[in-house]
């Protein structure tokens, strides 16, 4: 190798330094011109293209969706907490997510509409009336003792676990044209009249609660808390399911949204546990399907935004900005129009047409045709929403999706049920 002269070395060093100085000076300008990208981890159901486009237009933030299943959301938070900037998780998962210490207690002072969040979350009330709180009701896991605490606070604090995005009340879906009589109780799921034509959800923690609603309405047992059963209660519930399965009550179990739509639309099943958008999908295929309100009440669920503890600086600010935008109305109206409920009702109302609000939230007959956000016709003029108004539906919640203390045992018994 040829040795370089001193002069040459000096020259090159000076040029390098100059370039570096220019780069350092120019660096912040380049960064601020670059839009901040937020990696949004959640289930595909809530990750609409429209929301990402609106955020880009309103805030200049780029939302990068990471669509996974509900189970995968929990797995990611626990095993790869640095792989996302905002997460849309379900409240019932918090019992295992918060102890992992990977989620930040969000500062209520930085959430503009924090005190406008519906009392369903903060107090477990709808229109001043206390609703069912069996299972992991959001009010039980809404506050933390501190920003980095791994303990839920009994009384309201400044630190919030998840800022609610969507929630709803689930019940049974039925085919009125094939059943041809009114259905009013959860016990109908195991009525031998529908032998070979019933279905249940094959997600253990949710399926067992639907089963518990049935057991209770049959009068076989009164649970202290359907969302946190004792071992004998789990045994009893699973035994009821096994007996029904052996008697040929079930046509199938389903795990996936599309499976439930298929079962119902094809007429293989006439009564089953179902999710609200699945009922809408069946109806939009021209097949009659009702999301049947039942006298024992609904099983509710709720999801919300959480932030990873490692988030700092610009990304943290952007995340708060995004969450504040989410509560400011446009997104709420967008979700309400799909049959979900949004966290801050007044801002959503301001972004909806009065006839839309009357149909979706007040349970009044539709004054005009009701359309989905993408413009497809959902309901014709004159129809009334199944279950009626927000107060009627959310007010009749009996229990919430949950993780039980005896979760391990429950999963094992559920496997027994599937193998029976």
């Amino acid at each position, binding site marked *: 190798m040829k040795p370089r002269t001193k002069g040459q070395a000096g020259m090159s060093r000076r040029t390098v330094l100059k370039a570096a100085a220019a780069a350092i000076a120019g660096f912040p300008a380049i960064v601020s011109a670059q839009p901040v990208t937020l990696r949004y981890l959640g289930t595909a159901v809530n990750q609409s293209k429209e929301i990402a486009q609106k955020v880009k237009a309103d805030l200049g933030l780029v939302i990068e969706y990471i669509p996974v299943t509900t189970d995968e959301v929990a797995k990611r938070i626990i095993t790869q907490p640095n792989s996302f900037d905002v997460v849309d998780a379900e409240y019932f998962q918090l019992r295992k*997510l918060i*102890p992992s210490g990977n989620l930040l207690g969000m500062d209520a002072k930085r959430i503009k509409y924090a005190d406008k969040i519906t009392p369903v979350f903060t107090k477990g009330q709808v229109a001043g009336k206390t609703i069912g709180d069996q299972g992991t009701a959001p009010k039980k896991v809404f506050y933390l003792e501190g920003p980095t605490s791994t303990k839920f606070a009994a009384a309201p604090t400044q630190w919030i676990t998840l800022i609610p995005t969507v929630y709803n009340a689930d019940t049974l879906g039925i085919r009125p044209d094939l059943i041809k009589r009114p259905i009013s109780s959860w016990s109908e799921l195991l009525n031998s009249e529908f032998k070979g034509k019933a279905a249940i959800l094959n997600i253990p923690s949710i399926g067992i609660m639907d089963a518990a609603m049935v057991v209770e309405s049959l009068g076989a047992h009164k649970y202290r808390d359907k969302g946190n059963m004792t071992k004998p209660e789990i045994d009893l519930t699973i035994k009821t399911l096994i007996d029904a399965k052996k008697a040929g009550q079930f046509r199938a179990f389903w795990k996936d949204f599309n499976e439930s739509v298929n079962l119902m639309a*094809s007429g293989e099943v006439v009564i089953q546990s179902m999710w609200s958008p699945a009922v809408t999908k069946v109806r939009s295929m021209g097949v009659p399907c009702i999301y049947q309100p039942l006298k024992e009440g609904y099983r509710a669920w709720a999801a919300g935004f959480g932030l990873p503890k490692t988030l700092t600086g610009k990304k943290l600010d952007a995340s708060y900005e995004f969450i504040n935008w989410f509560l400011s109305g446009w997104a709420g109206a967008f979700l309400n129009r799909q049959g979900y409920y949004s966290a801050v009702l007044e801002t959503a109302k301001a972004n909806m047409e009065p006839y839309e609000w009357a149909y979706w939230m007040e349970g009044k007959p539709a004054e005009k045709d009701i359309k989905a956000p993408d413009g497809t016709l959902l309901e014709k003029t004159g129809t009334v929403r199944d279950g009626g108004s927000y107060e009627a539906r959310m007010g009749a919640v009996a229990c919430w999706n949950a993780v039980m203390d005896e979760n391990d045992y429950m999963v094992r018994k559920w*496997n027994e049920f*599937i193998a029976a």
Partner: protein
Amino acid sequence: MERVHRGLSRLITPAAAPYWQIAPLAGVFAVFFLLPLAITVIVSFWRYTEYSMIPAVVGDNYVSVFAGCLAELPALCVTFKTYLSTLKFCVLVWLVTLVLGFSVAYFLAFHVRSLTWQIVLFLLCTIPFWTSNVIRMISWVPLLGRNGLVNAFLVASGVSPSPLDWLLFSDFAVVLAFVHLYTMFMIVPLFNSMSRIDRALLEASRDAGASPWQTIWNVVVPLSKPGLVIGSIFVVTLVMGDYVTIGVMGGQQIASVGKIIQVELSYLQFPLAAANAVVLLGAVLAIIWTMTRLVDLRREL
């Protein structure tokens, strides 16, 4: 420079060459197969909570896999019941794919004379793989369902007074879907073995006065043994590990080992799932070991 060259040349002596040749595959194997497998085995002895795994060496997970298996005898515990049900599918699917695969391979190898037609017919066999696994299985529903095509035909033609429920979401449906999916895995190795059979042997057999069946049984079958075993290994391992087909075609009402593992994973019970996976691996290895005892693959190849 000279020294480096000499060192290099020692590494590429003829004796070392085979090791270099297998090194890339061995490396891939070590990183993507042996390492994960070792981790699975290690994790299966760990403890866990709902949100964490705790390194340990305990047999709790294995005890949990076989919970109640001794106490409940003669009734079967969940694990035994699940394995028995999976084994039942293995045997049924294996028998059907064997007969079907053998006939198709025989036809392709001995009756189709032109290479072009062999290739065309072979490609026809791969048609089931042109669509995705899930779509393929979901499309059985409108065919076999209560209001499906088959039932509509049976009722209209008077063969059956009412729609048959057992066509879908039943053992029958599961076996049907498996056969549809996996016969190909039997055809390919069998065809490969058969096409190597010297035609002169068949002629000799005929000349010696053997009937066509005797020729098949005494000449073709023994000579296609390697293909038979390889095909069987494919089918058996695929069926043992499957949970998607059993789930969709069985209406999620039929248990499978894979499904149990999946449920455990979704509840973050990784060590328990690992223990189940190790048990499954052991079961599959035992089956394969038995099969290779029946036929000495190495000698046959």
